[in-house]
């Protein structure tokens, strides 16, 4: 079973994304901010996919993407955020993000994207 790390400071978002992915057959780990997520990664946790918010306390999503990319070179990282404009997308892409999703993302759409970047359940 493939594992996905979901990072968001909103408990509602975590519940939404985690629930959707678990129904889809994935194992889900969560973190409330970039710092907590990075701690898990540095402790040896190697998820098959990271889905992270951008605006978070302690460490924002762009910084997390940048740091996570140093540890996990080929792991896909998706940004899931309310921010929609191009400059931020470009910044995330430059930091090593695999894709950009604007909230809210429907459950079916989310599963489709996850299967696209993470083929084979």
């Amino acid at each position, binding site marked *: 079973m493939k594992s996905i790390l979901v990072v968001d400071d909103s408990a*509602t978002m975590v519940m939404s*994304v985690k*629930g959707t992915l678990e129904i889809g057959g994935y194992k889900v780990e969560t973190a409330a901010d970039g710092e907590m997520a990075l701690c898990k990664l540095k402790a040896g946790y190697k998820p098959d996919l990271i889905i992270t918010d951008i605006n978070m306390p302690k460490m924002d999503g762009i910084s997390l993407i940048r740091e996570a990319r140093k540890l996990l070179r080929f792991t896909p990282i998706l940004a899931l955020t309310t921010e*929609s404009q191009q400059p931020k997308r470009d910044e995330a892409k430059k930091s090593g*993000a695999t894709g950009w999703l604007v*909230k809210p993302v*429907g459950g079916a759409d989310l599963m489709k994207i996850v299967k696209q970047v993470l083929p084979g359940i």
Partner: protein
Amino acid sequence: MSNPPAGAPALWCRARASRAFGGFTIAFLAVFLVVALEPLVAPLAGGWAARILQILGAASVAVWVGWRGTAGKQLVEQEVPLAQPSRAPEVLQNLLRLDDHMQERMAETTLTSEKYGTSMVESLTDLVGRSGKLVDYLAQAQQHSDAMQDGIESNARVNAEMAAFVRALPTQISEERNYFRQLLGEVKALSAIAGTIMEISKRTDLLALNAAIEAARVGDAGAGFSVVADEMRRLAGRTNASAAEIEQTISQLSQRVESKFSGEFDQRSHSNEAEAERLLQQALTIDESQVGMRQFYQVMMGAVTGHNTELNHAITELLGTIQYQDVLRQAIGRLTPAMTARGDIFLAMVDAWESQSDLSPLVEQSATAVSEYAANELMHQPVAPSAPGSRGSQLKSVELF
């Protein structure tokens, strides 16, 4: 008298009008009292009344002048910041623009909240409906299972009968084997009899040889030949007896075999065939029942799986809709600092009025608040790829790099 500042000096105009109106009203009343009332009271009170009226008129003028100099002065002092050339209108206009932005965003947020709230209620209603259908289907499955339970018990009885039948078969086979073993013994006995006959035959040959020898001597002693002949007759008797014994044995054997096969064995065989046929039919019935049961469970599993897939789909869509709570939370989160900035600017304006300070910094501050809020909102502009041409349609809600 100062000129109104550029912009929209409505307050300044109102203050000016109020002050002019008060002064002219008092002056008018004083003149009215002096001019209009003097003819009325003069015949009654003489010249002193007219003098009183003149005094009153003069007093009124004095009061007006005094008011113009004291109360009026106070009013003028209060109006000083408003009357001075001020940038307050610019600040207010910026704050009004900020209000417009916030109101527009709040209106959008309210509409979107309603849309997602309605969507969630619809999803939940759909979920309840689908769950109800699944429960109904499972209730039907329960009824079918009860019916199948009876079939299973019947199948168990048939299986028990088949087991008893099969269990009895070794005993029957053993008995039949014993019969055949006995028959084999009797056949062996026949073989022994055959040996006896062979021996007799050999002796007959020997006697025939002896008879031939004695015959050569016929002339001398014919008595010896008669002895041989007697012996041959006895042998013939024994041969006949053996043949009769063989015939009888074979006859008995035949009868036993016949009785065995045509009687008990046939009967048992027919009984077994009938029982086997009955059990076979029941086994076929069981098989059909099992096929039906398997089909039923396949259909049921298909239906349950289908319902479960639909339920999962509905739940994931509902979970996706819940994400709007975070979108709303962040929209409110962006409103809060803008409202705080707006409040701070108002307070600063009051301070500036009281201290008659320059409002230019507040103009900049309010303009910054407007542009920051607008820029922040632009960064979080909703993306709706499903509605081409709408706001933000040039940006995709999902983009893989």
